[in-house]
């Protein structure tokens, strides 16, 4: 290799790509070696400048870490907040639905074990459940169909009266 190194070859030398012909040329060509050293020195200067530019006191890094932690904490809260809101809203919605339903109170004596068993009626969950079951079994038709049932009964009675005549 008698000619001087071109851009590509010089770049290869700078990037530490192993290339025997380039190394051989650099061994005998002062001009190319000098140029290579000049570029290396310039790159070292850029590197040193960047390193110096990035130097900061310990306080800076500590504050930066605190800022990162604070932003991550804020992010975590934002992630969990919607879940908390959703849970609260569902509880409120459930309570509201129960209140709006307005279930009429039923007599407690529905053939259930008397209070003499020693168990408090109000506190016994089994008793409450049985009261609910009794309430629904006693109801002939769903509440929503009660008007329709009344109409049907009226029609049935009217038909009965006609047949009597």
């Amino acid at each position, binding site marked *: 290799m008698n000619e001087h190194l071109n851009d590509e070859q010089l770049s290869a030398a700078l990037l530490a790509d192993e290339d025997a012909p380039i190394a051989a040329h650099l061994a005998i060509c002062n001009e190319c070696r000098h140029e290579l050293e*000049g570029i290396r020195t310039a790159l070292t200067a850029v590197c040193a400048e960047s*390193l*110096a530019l990035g130097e900061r006191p310990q306080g800076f*890094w500590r504050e*930066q870490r605190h800022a990162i932690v604070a932003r*991550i904490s804020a992010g975590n809260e934002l992630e969990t907040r919607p879940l908390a809101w959703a849970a609260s809203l569902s509880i409120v919605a459930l309570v509201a639905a129960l209140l709006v339903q307005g279930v009429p109170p039923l007599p407690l004596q529905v053939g259930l074990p008397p209070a003499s068993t020693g168990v408090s009626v109000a506190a016994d969950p089994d008793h409450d459940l049985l009261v609910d079951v009794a309430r629904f079994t006693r109801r002939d038709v769903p509440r929503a169909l009660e008007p329709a049932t009344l109409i049907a009964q009226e029609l049935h009675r009217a038909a009965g009266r006609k047949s009597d005549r």
Partner: protein
Amino acid sequence: MSPFRRAGTASGLRAEDFDEIVRQNQGRVFRFLLSLLRDPDAADTLTQECFLRAYRKRASFRGDASISTWLTRIAFNLAADHGKNRRNAFWSRLFGRSRAEDSEAAVLAVADAQPSAERALIASEQYAAVRAVVDGLPSRQKAVFLMRFVEEMSIQEIAQATGLETGTVKSHLHRALSAVRQKVNLRSTT
């Protein structure tokens, strides 16, 4: 309780390790962003953003690349997004003077490290000339250049960080070095 510990561990990167990851890499990420953007405030903000994004995406870290390469990739993308923002051009112009002062301080810092006044002058002149070349490089080329010669990343690592093919990374480096070579040659002949 550390916020890192609150988010569970069912992820590619354990939340418990994040504090240490920040400690080990914040200097590198900040330096890279500062070299790229030449704006200390933006570099600080984007460094924070980088770790925030890394924390959120920690489940996607597969370990194909090192953590530092992965963080460099995030920082590179943030810097690219930052560059796209037109408003930054306004702030760049507004704060251009302070950045120039920063650069001057950096030159002095480099010069201080040299044993003699003559060497300091050479370092300062070389810095000014080559820095101008580096600053004038297209953003992607500049990022690749800084990754290689400041962060001393391998071609493979740069490819992982930028999402480019290794051949493209080499091509960027060749072009950048060619520009530096021309500048150095011009200076040596004048």
